[in-house]
């Protein structure tokens, strides 16, 4: 195997492994939205407040997944 292929192989495996972190973000978003929808169903009057807090929580949970994404993007496109 020539060195160039080895580098590409390593990059691909590393980027894929880095994206495992996105699973945590997915679980977090699922929990947050699930809770918010239940809360909205129980008291629809507070939908606006709940929605804002839900979006914030989703954004925070998503940030973790985005860190993983940024790491894998750096592995793919910046490392050479």
């Amino acid at each position: 195997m020539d060195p160039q292929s080895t580098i590409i192989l390593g990059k691909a495996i590393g980027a894929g492994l880095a994206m495992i972190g996105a699973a945590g973000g997915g679980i977090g978003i699922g929990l947050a939205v699930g809770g918010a929808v239940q809360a909205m169903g129980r008291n629809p009057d507070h939908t606006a407040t709940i929605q804002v807090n839900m979006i914030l929580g989703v954004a925070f949970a998503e940030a973790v997944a985005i860190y993983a994404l940024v790491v894998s993007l750096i592995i793919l496109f910046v490392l050479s």
Partner: protein
Amino acid sequence: MNSFWNGKRRFVALLMLLAGVFVALRVPPVIPFIQLPGENFPEGFNVPFTDIRLTNTFAGSVIVWILLLLFVIYVSRRRPKSGNEVPPGGFYNMFEALFEGLMGFVGGIAGGRHFRLIFNMFMTIFLVVLLANWMELVPGVDTVGFIHPHVKEKYDVDSGEYKVITTDGYEIYQGFLGISYVNGQCDWISPADEAAADEAALVEAKAAAAAAEQASIEDAAYARYQAAHGEHGEETDSTDASSDGHGDDAHSSESGESDAAAAAYDEVLAARVAAKQARADRSCYTGVGPVPWADDYVGDDKADKKKSIPLHPDPRGEEAKLVPWVVLPFVRVPSTDLNMTLSLALISFVMIQFIGFKALGIGYLTKFFNFGTLFKSPLGGIDVAVGLLELIGDFAKILSFGFRLLGNIFAGSILLFVMSFLVPILPWPFFILEFFVGVIQALVFALLTAIFMNLATVSHHHDDDHDHAEAH
């Protein structure tokens, strides 16, 4: 205007759909070239009086600023000056609805003594990020630009120069209307055929070199040699043309000059074989635009490896196939550059601290350095640790803000590239998705700034809140 367009819009949409189908069929789908840092513009687009090159993401943010300024001027001119005036409708009304809606939204979260400052900050960040995010939906952004040899440039701090690193070879494809596209068709010849043809070319080139050597010994028969070598040159040329399917006569002028030229020609051919074989199982880079200039690249890092590949070839010659050609977009989405997102995050961070000091005075620092309860209560040590954690958490906000926006929008634009490659006729559902992602990310960025600013104005000593409010 309105009556003119009545009932015709659907035909415009149909026409654009047909145009999309035509372009998708006419221009072969190609994998885009993806680069994370903003691309440097070529020589001549420097920051005045310095060596620092401007980037295409910077051009994008300049467009955002200009658009924002135009909006500000427009809205402030159209705004009714007195309460009796009827507000104008249309485009202006959109801004009024937007401001009113968001004002109520932010008022519910951060409606307090500092609402005005927080809302100004919120709205500015929201509009800037929104415009920056939506740029990826504009046709031509990220796809139209300079076509140039693909070299990686890195700014070397020690020498103060841009160092050039070349990568492997791709080809340029002549399109219609004088517009070229890079690597329009990667697999126009099967790899096996190509390899076989290149082997033949290599043998031919070696024969030419051997003939040149032999001829150089026979000085007496120099004139005769010239005639014979001219024939040789023609032979290699014809096999070239049959081997790659492109008619080319780039070499006929080079051959038949001297011993050294023949040797160099041999070397070029060998390099061409290597480059072509390397290309056979690789993907392609793409883009559309004019081919502008002969670049003046110097300082090749891998000069030894790629000696025979010209750095600034004639785009229409045979040599052009030896170097990679990529598009440097005129404008790239500014939110895909870490410089833009991080500096916005820094501005947001500074404003959070500023409003904290403005609201609580020097007492704001007790949020971070909370030694007041260290000896008074048994849990004082925990307060100190919590304060230090808050300090670290505040700096982590910069990274979190910056990377969240960058990651979302960069991933979004890659999604658009890839989907345009996979389904060139129907990528627009993803454009709708990115439309919403742009809004949500702008809202999240601005909203988090507003919330953190609001949090900073609230003293964390809940029991002596009133003392603080009266003291300042």
